[in-house]
């Protein structure tokens, strides 16, 4: 698709979403992947509708033949909008739809208003360290944001393409086992952990919630030491709220700032209290179970990245290096398991 077609398509999409008349230019390309591009746009409303503003457009080639392998950005837009409507700091969706492309594959686009702030984890840690209460405000905002997200009735979010996957604890354990069995090399630490997880299975939550799936330092826009927006909703699903709370506390997302359990910037007590104060129900046994399960999942995920490199499906140095990070997650997991094996 030429830039000219792209701009015309985006303008049409924005206009039909009620933001027109306007003119728009591509400021620059932020990321470019095989079938996904992210670009920064400058949008200038015509007439007296205020000054120009920046927006981010995600463009995804949508191969209908491979339905189910990538989440439709239209579905992502529906979830993000529902979250935002319920008070979760999330990006504002300006428009979402298919570009009227002349040639297949069709391109889906999600346009959101640019949110100012920092996302790079170590910079986030530095920026909150610079203010008086450290990461406390950010921690509380994370607890509140997750409580508001988890309060949404998943049935009330209507999706255009496919239903969200549902993970009970038992089903998540099956998923972990399948992922482990897919790896060519043996990983007895993860096998050992899975046995323990099966032994200590907690009860499922009284009601299922919308789960972000990747709510952690690195996917949060942080501005003025507070949460401006949660990003990266691609892994959203239905399941146990404790999954999200465990994930943001994983040691791997503390980026060396280990004494602060929450993303390397906050205390677990502050997160727990903020979550409960906003109506969330904290289940400690499930939190601990998900901490182990998610640590195992990420370790298995890193091992899978290394396999992709070894088998020639990826030539990324990051994926090669992932193979040597697996042991970090094993070490964390064995630490979590220590108290359970006596």
């Amino acid at each position: 698709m030429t830039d000219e077609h792209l701009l015309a398509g985006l303008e049409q999409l924005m206009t039909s979403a009620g933001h027109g008349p306007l003119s728009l230019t591509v400021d620059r390309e932020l990321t470019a992947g095989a079938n996904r591009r992210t670009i920064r746009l400058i949008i200038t409303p015509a007439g007296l509708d205020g000054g120009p503003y920046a927006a981010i457009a995600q463009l995804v080639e949508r191969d209908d033949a491979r339905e189910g392998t990538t989440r439709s950005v239209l579905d992502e837009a529906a979830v993000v909008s529902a979250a935002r409507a319920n008070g979760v700091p999330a990006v504002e969706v300006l428009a979402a739809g298919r570009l009227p492309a002349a040639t297949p594959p069709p391109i889906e686009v999600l346009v959101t208003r640019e949110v100012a702030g920092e996302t790079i984890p170590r910079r986030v840690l530095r920026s909150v360290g610079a203010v008086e209460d450290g990461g406390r405000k950010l921690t509380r905002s994370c607890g509140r944001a997750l409580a508001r997200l988890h309060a949404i009735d998943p049935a009330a979010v209507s999706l255009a393409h496919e239903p969200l996957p549902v993970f009970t604890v038992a089903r998540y354990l099956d998923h972990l086992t399948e992922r482990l069995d897919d790896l060519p090399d043996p990983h007895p630490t993860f096998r050992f952990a899975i046995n323990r997880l099966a032994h200590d299975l907690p009860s499922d939550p009284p009601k299922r919630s919308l789960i972000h799936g990747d709510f952690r330092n690195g996917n949060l826009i942080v501005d003025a030491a507070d949460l401006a927006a949660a990003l990266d909703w691609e892994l959203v699903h239905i399941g146990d709220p404790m999954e999200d709370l465990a994930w943001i506390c994983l040691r791997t997302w503390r980026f060396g700032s280990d004494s602060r359990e929450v993303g390397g910037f906050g205390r677990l007590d502050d997160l727990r209290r903020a979550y409960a104060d906003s109506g969330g129900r904290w289940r400690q046994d499930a939190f601990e179970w998900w901490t182990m399960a998610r640590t195992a999942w990420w370790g298995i995920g890193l091992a899978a990245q290394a396999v992709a490199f070894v088998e020639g499906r990826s030539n990324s140095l990051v994926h090669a290096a992932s193979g040597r990070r697996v042991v970090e997650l094993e070490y964390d997991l064995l630490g979590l398991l220590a108290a359970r094996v006596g």
Partner: protein
Amino acid sequence: MIDRPDAHRLLLAVAEALTDEVVPVLSASASASAPVQVADPEAAAARYTARIAANLCRIVAREAELWPQAEAATVADLRGLLGRDGGSLEELSRALDDELRTGAGDLDPGSVHRVLSAAAGRRLAIARPSYGDDLGGGHRS
């Protein structure tokens, strides 16, 4: 007929050159025009790659030094745990994985945990020696 520097020393030299010479130049262009939003994303990506490359060189250098002993110790532990007289690390790892998966062998979880923790500690000494200390003397078997 001995060529110097040896592999270990060469890898450390490469790591040092990447860290001290390449990364700072890329850092300068990655954030030259702060605010961050208009920094050069290609320089930032190249800096990230250079850091990973330097780290991998250090891992390989440590592996050459530490792995022979680490492997022998883990093999001995696994043979003891599984009650075997022989077997390579890969065979023994697979045997342990199979026993854990099928529940055969009726292994004592505490013993399995000790063997796995010791092995992880040895691998971590190669992959990321500071990691165990980061917890402020956390668990160590």
